């Protein structure tokens, strides 16, 4: 038999037998049996809080906050509005094209 035909036959045979197995609590059982190890995910929150505190402290101490507020008072409100809408818009376009490319790759 031709190699291609053999391949096709075997692919068809195995595809017929290929079934997805429902989880039916398997993952939950695995999670229960995992040995206890320290969960360090709280570190992310701590670092975020520390970073936030430092940036707020510096902005107050160095007067950046006041400076920014003064600037904001002189900026027309429609500039601010357009700035607020600009980033989500650019972000959405970026995500849209990135996802589109991703699906095409699959």
């Amino acid at each position, binding site marked *: 038999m031709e190699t291609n035909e053999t391949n096709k036959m075997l692919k068809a045979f195995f595809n017929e037998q290929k079934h997805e197995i429902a989880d039916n609590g398997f993952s939950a059982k695995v999670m229960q049996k*995992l040995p206890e190890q320290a969960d360090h995910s709280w570190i992310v929150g701590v670092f975020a809080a520390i970073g936030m505190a430092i940036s707020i402290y510096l902005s107050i101490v160095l007067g950046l906050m006041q400076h920014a507020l003064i600037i904001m008072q002189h900026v027309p409100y429609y500039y601010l509005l357009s700035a607020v809408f600009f980033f989500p818009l650019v972000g959405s376009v970026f995500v849209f094209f990135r996802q589109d490319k991703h699906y095409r790759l699959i």
Partner: protein
Amino acid sequence: MSNTDDIRWVTQVALLGDKNAFDKLTCKYQSSIRRFFLNLTMGDGPLSDDLAQETFIKAYLNISAFKGISGFSTWLYRIAYNVFYDSARAQKHYDDIDELVIDNQHQTLNEFSAEKMDIYKALNILRKEEQTAVLLFYMEDKTHKEIAKIMNCPLGTAKTYILKGKEKLSVYLTKVGYGN
């Protein structure tokens, strides 16, 4: 879900010990790993679930050893392969399997018993290495290179296993009239 997700979840588990990230990995790969074991154990559902559970626990404990050179899936199958062969060696599983036992297992333990009879009978004519390589190639869609990594053998050897398995299976399936 892409390989990028895998890397992100692996990083979360390895660096932060985040169990939720590992749960996502388990949910994603449970079906393929359990199916792999189910076929290797000739349809022994409870045994294949035990082996799959051991595989995921070993993966969790050794996740920092994952270097990301091959995909997470390949790495997981490598662990599964080792778990299966360790278990087989320990229980002399190969020697104990005979056709009668397999038939009983099909009748009692496997939800797809009638349909699966063919595949187990077909796989049973192969050597264990050929079974593994053929299952990985045709059932789990792994490449030759990935199979060589999973089975920890040279690429040429993996190709030979697949080729020999393919030849034997094609003769068997033709003989039983498959595809006619």
